[in-house]
């Protein structure tokens, strides 16, 4: 464990220094919205946001990507991304989500070369939450507003400066490499950080989701799913904005005389997701689709990977056009 500190006004220098060796991705304003993007010289890093509308999964597992083209020369696979990148400012919940995606795309039976290349070239600096939103519930799903899971370095905002702490050897090496910019924090700064960490965790409300896996499992035949789904509009907001939803489809498309193979994110809440070639669809109703999505996150991944694939970021709650609330689903679906 190594510590570092940087005054906020010096962050621009860090961006420039890192940017000279690769991409620096961080929280910047785009179209009046704070989002994660490659930081340009004209950008100023924004540090006061609850979270981004879109989760960081898209940087590693894009909404769509061409993985191969085919034409007269046969099939040409898209080369793997290269070069170093630094991802700064993801919230601890989102950093945690990357460890879950790693289990699917890197540690399971078949590794995904594109995901792996992007993950391995990226150093992640998570930024601890000062003011968790009312919809945050990370502490109910194995997270914390200052959790280090999935991050190489955790940065804590103490007002005029950030205090950094390495969580992996790669993070330690980064702090050493940029030691000139990232000095050692004073005792007072460390105390301020500890106080900041302690106050933030108190602001996250608990949703009482203990034993949720067993409870949901017993609820699979409950009529409550159809009642809940009555209000659901059947869009993909919850799925596409979820930092851990990772289903995708592979499609071959014609583009003039050429063809391309596209991998695109898909969503189990859409009827076409389970539509079979015969025309049969095993999940005909929205209740069945909603049940599957919730079960996948809170039961199936717990069984197959040992983790609940929800980080408590609250995006599905904030953005649902029908105000579906996963906190209620988890606590109210009766067995």
């Amino acid at each position, binding site marked *: 464990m190594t510590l570092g500190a940087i005054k906020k006004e010096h962050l621009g220098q860090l961006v420039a220094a890192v940017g000279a060796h690769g991409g620096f991705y961080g929280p910047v304003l785009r179209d009046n919205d704070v989002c994660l993007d490659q930081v340009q010289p004209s950008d100023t890093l924004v540090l006061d946001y609850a979270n981004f509308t879109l989760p960081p999964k898209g940087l590693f597992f894009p909404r769509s990507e061409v993985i191969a083209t085919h034409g007269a020369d046969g099939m040409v696979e898209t080369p793997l991304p290269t070069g170093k990148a630094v991802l700064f400012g993801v919230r601890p919940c989102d950093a945690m989500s990357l460890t879950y995606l790693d289990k699917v795309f890197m540690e399971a039976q078949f590794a995904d070369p594109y995901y792996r290349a992007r993950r391995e070239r990226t150093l992640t600096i998570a930024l601890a939450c000062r003011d968790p939103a009312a*919809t945050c519930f990370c502490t109910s799903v194995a997270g914390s507003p200052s959790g280090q899971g999935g991050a190489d370095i955790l940065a804590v905002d103490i007002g005029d400066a950030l205090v950094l702490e390495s969580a992996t050897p790669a993070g330690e090496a980064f702090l050493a490499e940029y030691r000139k910019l990232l000095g050692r924090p004073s005792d007072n700064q460390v105390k301020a950080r500890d106080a900041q960490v302690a106050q933030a965790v108190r602001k996250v409300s608990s949703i009482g989701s203990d034993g949720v896996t067993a409870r949901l499992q017993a609820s699979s035949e409950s009529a409550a799913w159809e009642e809940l789904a009555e*209000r659901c509009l059947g*869009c993909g907001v919850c799925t596409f*904005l979820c930092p851990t939803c990772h289903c995708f489809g592979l499609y071959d498309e014609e583009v003039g005389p050429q063809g391309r193979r596209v991998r695109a994110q898909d969503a189990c809440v859409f009827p076409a997701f389970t539509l079979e070639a015969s025309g049969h669809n095993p999940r005909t109703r929205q209740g069945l689709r909603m049940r599957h999505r919730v079960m996948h996150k809170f039961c199936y991944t717990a069984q197959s990977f040992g983790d609940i694939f929800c980080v408590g970021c609250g995006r599905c709650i904030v953005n649902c056009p029908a105000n579906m*609330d996963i906190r209620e689903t988890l606590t109210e679906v009766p067995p």
Partner: protein
Amino acid sequence: MHDAQTKLRETAKDLLVSAKVDLVLGFQNGSLPLRTRPCFARNAADAGRLVWNRLCTNNLAVYLPRLFEKPANVRGPWTPPKVAVVAKGCDARSIMGLVKEHQVIRENVVIIAMPCQGMISLRKAEAAGASARTSKLDGDDLVAQACLECIQPSVPGANIIIDGPSRSAASDRFQRVKDFEALTAAERWQQFVAQVSKCIRCYACRQACPNCYCKTCFIDQTKPSWAGVGDDPTDLLLFHIGRVFHQAGRCVECDACVRACPVGIDLRLFTQKLVKDVEELFGYVPGTSLEEAPPLSTYRPDDSECFITDP
């Protein structure tokens, strides 16, 4: 406003207890500040949860087509439900449109006309911050643009009318479209591309729209496939142009697509352009009457063709 809510609860309770309807579609308090959520009230207790305020934004007509569809698991005869809908002007215009398109059985729907003062825009409220939010909930400061430009806050086809203060109709609602039309074709194209490039293809705009009831949307068809699945602007444009064009003569400007979009695409500019064209070229405002035939189902020899020859 509070009186209207009390009357609404009594009305809904009467309708349900006397079995005049099987279901009252309305609003109840949501789980977040400034949010309500759709309420499917089936008994007196449910009716007691109904609310009416300036946060009742959703267009509840979206739920009607599926309620009038025979469920796949029902064998033999099936009786469609009787449904009362708590309706703003825009919601009722949607219902009128759905009746004309044979998606809703008019006799089975009781339209409860609510007094509408315009609905609060969550985006405006968020931008205003917490302190401004509480003090401005009564005025027009945080009201959605679509409501400020609403030409018919009163409810067409009302079966039951609940009185209360409501806003008056806007006069000129097309200023923004006129500004858009004044741009060069290249500028308009650029604006269009910039907006749809934000799309993540969650289809919330489509799902929230009462008019988007197709069993299979053209964008989901695979034989043939009309658009690629990726983020190529051509494919994103094809979806949005396709969806918006399918709204010609049908869009009632309820703003449901705009509210549902999680990435803030300015869909209203495009639907409103279409509304303006239909109004000016064919003299038709959707959802105002059950009798007038929609422009796409009629033909007159003197129908305007300028949208083909002079785009």
